[in-house]
Structure formats: structure tokens, C-alpha cells
């Protein structure tokens, strides 16, 4: 493979990492509080607001059931408003963030709901405020689950990032389609797939490692 093509792959890899990295950060910044709220706002829970909970649940489900490629084109005006353009890797971060936020929120909700309800009662019994319960009990206790959820989100984002090539988002998926498919260069297609497999493996292993590190539920020495 020529050095130009190798350079293309390297550049596309960085574009993918950039899009996925920023989208994962923003998706977590929005998805974590949203997920915590979804997990604690049903009737009788810490931040009980059953109606808001139901409305947010519907919005989250609606976003998650919209096919990603449709979401990308449907929100082009919004993307332009936020990023100033609808083309390129930076613009692609907008739909990636919007798609990952509800996904992360649902994963966070599930991880938080796994925390033993007795711990909430315990913290309440010594006068913890709802916010203290979230910060000092729920999130630390759910941390292994949260890290695995984030890992899953990053892996899914890598898959989504391949689709934003369709609107000029760049990245590995875009490279694979334009060179591997449209220019009929199977070795390029193969190279892109290999890089993606390696990235997913790396992210998954790192996530598993961190989750194991912070998991004190089992004997670890």
C-alpha cells in the first residue's frame, strides 16, 4: 500500500477518534445526569417527578428509535446552528452527541437501578440530602457498571461514526466507502475494518480493565 494511502488511513483514524471522543464526552455530560434522573424520579423515589420521568422517557425512546442516518440528515439545520456548518468531522459531533445521549442515559439508568435500594435508605437515615446520595452513594456504587456502559457507548459511537461519512463527516467509515467501495480498492476496505476492529478491542479491554479495578464487590487480592 502506498504511503499516501497509509497517510489517509492515519488521518481518517484521527478524525474518527476526534468525533467519537468529543461525542462520548458530551454524550456522557448530558447522558449521565439524564440517566441518574430517570433512575431516581419515579413515584416514591429520591427526585420523584413521575410525569417528567414519563415525558423524558418518551423523548429518549423516540430519539433512540430514529435510525441514525435519518437523524443525521433530519437535524442538519440544527447542526449548522451549533457547528456553523453541516459538513466535516466537527459538524458530525452534533448528531453523534444527540444519538449517544439517550443511549448513555438508558445505560446509566440501568446501572444506577442496580444499586441496592437499602443503601439509599441507609444514607437517608443519617441525614444525607438527595444530591449527596447521588454523589456519595449511587454513582460510586454504580461505577463499575457505569464504566462498562460508557465502554459500550464508545463502541457504538465508532459504528455510528462510520455513517456520518454520508454527509461529509470524514473518518474511517467515510474512507472505507469512498476508497474501498466506490473506487473498488478491497485492500483499503480491509485496512479500515482492521483498524476499526483494533480500536474496538482496545476500547473494550480498557473499559473492562477499569471496571474491574473499581469493582470492590468481590475479593480482589
Amino acid at each position, binding site marked *: 500500500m502506498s504511503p499516501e494511502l497509509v497517510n489517509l488511513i492515519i488521518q481518517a483514524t484521527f478524525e474518527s477518534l476526534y468525533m467519537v471522543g468529543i461525542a462520548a464526552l458530551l454524550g456522557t455530560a448530558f447522558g449521565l445526569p439524564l440517566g441518574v434522573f430517570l433512575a431516581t424520579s419515579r413515584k416514591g423515589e429520591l427526585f420523584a417527578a413521575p410525569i417528567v420521568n414519563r415525558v423524558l422517557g418518551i423523548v429518549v425512546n423516540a430519539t433512540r428509535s430514529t435510525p441514525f442516518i435519518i437523524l443525521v440528515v433530519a437535524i442538519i439545520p440544527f447542526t449548522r446552528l451549533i457547528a456553523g456548518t453541516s459538513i466535516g468531522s466537527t459538524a458530525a459531533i452534533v448528531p453523534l452527541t444527540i444519538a449517544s445521549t439517550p443511549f448513555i442515559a438508558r445505560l446509566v439508568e440501568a446501572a444506577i437501578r442496580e444499586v*441496592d435500594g*437499602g*443503601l439509599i*435508605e*441507609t*444514607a*437517608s*437515615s*443519617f*441525614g*444525607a*440530602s438527595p444530591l*449527596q446520595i447521588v454523589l*456519595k*452513594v449511587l454513582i*460510586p*456504587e454504580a*461505577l463499575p457498571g457505569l464504566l462498562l456502559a460508557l465502554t459500550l457507548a464508545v463502541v457504538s459511537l465508532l459504528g455510528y461514526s462510520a455513517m456520518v461519512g454520508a454527509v461529509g463527516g470524514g473518518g474511517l467509515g467515510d474512507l472505507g466507502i469512498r476508497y474501498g467501495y466506490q473506487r473498488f480498492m478491497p485492500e483499503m476496505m480491509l485496512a479500515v475494518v482492521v483498524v476499526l476492529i483494533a480500536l474496538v478491542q482496545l476500547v473494550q479491554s480498557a473499559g473492562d480493565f477499569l471496571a474491574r479495578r*473499581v469493582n*470492590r*464487590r*468481590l*475479593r*480482589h*487480592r
Partner: protein
Amino acid sequence: MNAHQSLAIGQPIETFDAISPPVTEPDAMVRFEGISKTYPAYRGKPGVNALHNIDFAIPRGSVAGVIGRSGAGKSSLVRLINGLEKPTTGRVIVDGRDISALTGRALRLAQRSIGMIFQHFNLLSSRTAADNIALPLEIAGWAKADIKARVTELLALVGIADKHDRYPSELSGGQKQRVGIARALATRPSVLLSDEATSALDPQTTRAILDLLANINRELGVTIVLITHEMSVVRQLAKEVVVLDAGHVVESGHVADIFTHPKHPITQSFLAEVIGDSLPVSLASRIVPGPSAGGHAVIRIEVRGAGAGETLVARLARELGRDVSLLSARIDEIGGQHVGSLVLGIPLGVSSAADAVTRTLAFLSQHQFSAEHLGYVA
């Protein structure tokens, strides 16, 4: 100055007294006044009347046992004391303050003076023993250095100073409960609530934990409320007892008074768990309704009270002028009082069988023993 105060190192940033003046009620630490608790119907499940017209007081510095079968309302009762639940009617006065009227921040401040330990310990798996104990202090806004000193002191108090950096998954059940106790005492509460705290522990560990609680009550003067379905817990530790059945207080008072003269069937059944109310099988199978020559009349005597029954057998033998056989005996001590029963065989000698029985029962009744003629053995 008592030991509880002398343990003080850091001061909590805010105390509850700043918010509302205490109502003057010096003798009672916890007082239930006309409490009822009804859970409304929810999602097709019918409503539940968990507690009805509860009125009782727990004296300051006492150890009170709340005993009842599952579903009797024990958990609801204890959750009213620390404000985790609100009564439907009535009020709960804790340390002179109406906790059932408090909400939000005022309630959270009051909760810092009420510690609680749990059946399943409820420790954070992500924190070491020391950090679990530190949690209520962090929540109360203590300074880091004060927390560190207080945690060290508490670990020593509960006898696990060497487990400072251990995670709950590395501790045994008894050690976990010790962490739970240290955590509950961290903010120097005046009341310690124990919700079936020994139910998940083996008998030996249970005894050690109950001894620790007795020490804490004695040394720190903390009032302890024990929620339990185990008579052994009440027997070993409690001075006062509240017997709960189907949401009603059926009996309450000093442990010795309640269990030497149990009135309600539930109380009697709890007592029977400790002292047994059935005869040994080999004896029961030999008892016949009619007397036989050279046999014995079988008399069961209830033993209730301090030192009761100690010389009874000898005195009865002297009264009858005959040796009396001891067929079965089961006597335990509850609240410093002897509670149990003796089963004696009264020899049917020269006088008629009816005469021996009559004389025995008359003697016992004269000495205020309650006795029952069960039959005869050969």
C-alpha cells in the same frame, strides 16, 4: 461528664438545637403518641393498616426491644423514629422533638442524632471500612482531620482497628456489622436503632454483637431500640420490651414484668421459644390419667421471679415428708428474673393419691406458685 462526651473530638458544623427548641420531656428518649400508619392502595395492591393507636415511651439510656412476628409492623415503627416514614396520625417525639413534624433540612439535621444499623449491614462496597464510617461525617460536613481522628477512634471502639483499609467484601458478617455500628455512632447519636441487626449472623457472632451493643449502651449512654423477631435478642439485651402484633402494641413494659407474667398469646409464644412449653417426649408418653401403686403424681410448676424456685423442691419435700423427684426443669433468666417451669414427681405413698396432690397444690398456692396437675406416672 460521661464517656460519650469524653470521646468527642471534632464538633459537627451545625447542631439541631440552633433550629428548634426542644420540648421538655426529660424522661423519655422516644415517645409514640397516638400513632397510626396506613399505606394507601397502590397499583392494584390494597392499602395496609400497618400500625394502630401506638402509645408508648422508651426511657432515656434504656435498651428497648420491639418484638413481633414478620408483618407485625416493626419496620414501620422503627422508620417512624428516624423520620424515614411519616405517621398517618399522631406524633413521634425523639429526644424532646417532634420528628414527625420535620421535613427537608430540619429533618436531615435531626436524623444525625439517630443512628441505625441494618440486617444486611448496608455498607458501600466501593468504600473501605474506614471510609464507610466516614460517610455520615462527610455528609454532616466535618473537616477531614476531624473525620480521620473520629474514624480511628470508632474502629477501636467496635474492636476492628486492624480492618481500617479493608473493603466490605473482605470482612466477615460480624465484622461488617461492627463497621455498621461504628458508622451509626459516628455523629454521636443519642438513639441507636437496630433493625434485625443480628438476624443474618450465626449465634456466636450474634452474642458478640449484642455484647458490643450492651457495652455501647453502658459506656456511651446511647438509648438503643432493637427491632427483632428473636426472643434471644430481647432476653440478652433489652430492659424494656414492646410486643407488637398485627400493628397493635399488645404488651409493653419492663422485660422482667412482661415475661414473668405474659398475658397475650403472642407474648406467651415468644416466651415459649426460650423456655419451652412442652414436656420431654419420653416423659409425656408415660403420663397416664389414673394413679398406680408406687407411682408418682406429675405436677408442673411455673417459676417466675428473682430467685424463685431455688429452694422449692427441698421445701416441698420437707412439707410432704417424702423425697420429691425432679422429672424435668427448664429455667432461664430474662431481665434478671427467673422464668421457666419445673416438673416434679410426687410419690404416692401411704396416703391416698388425691391427698398427695391436694397437699402439694395447697403448699404451692400458699407460696404463690402457679401449678398444674398433669397426671400420673408409674
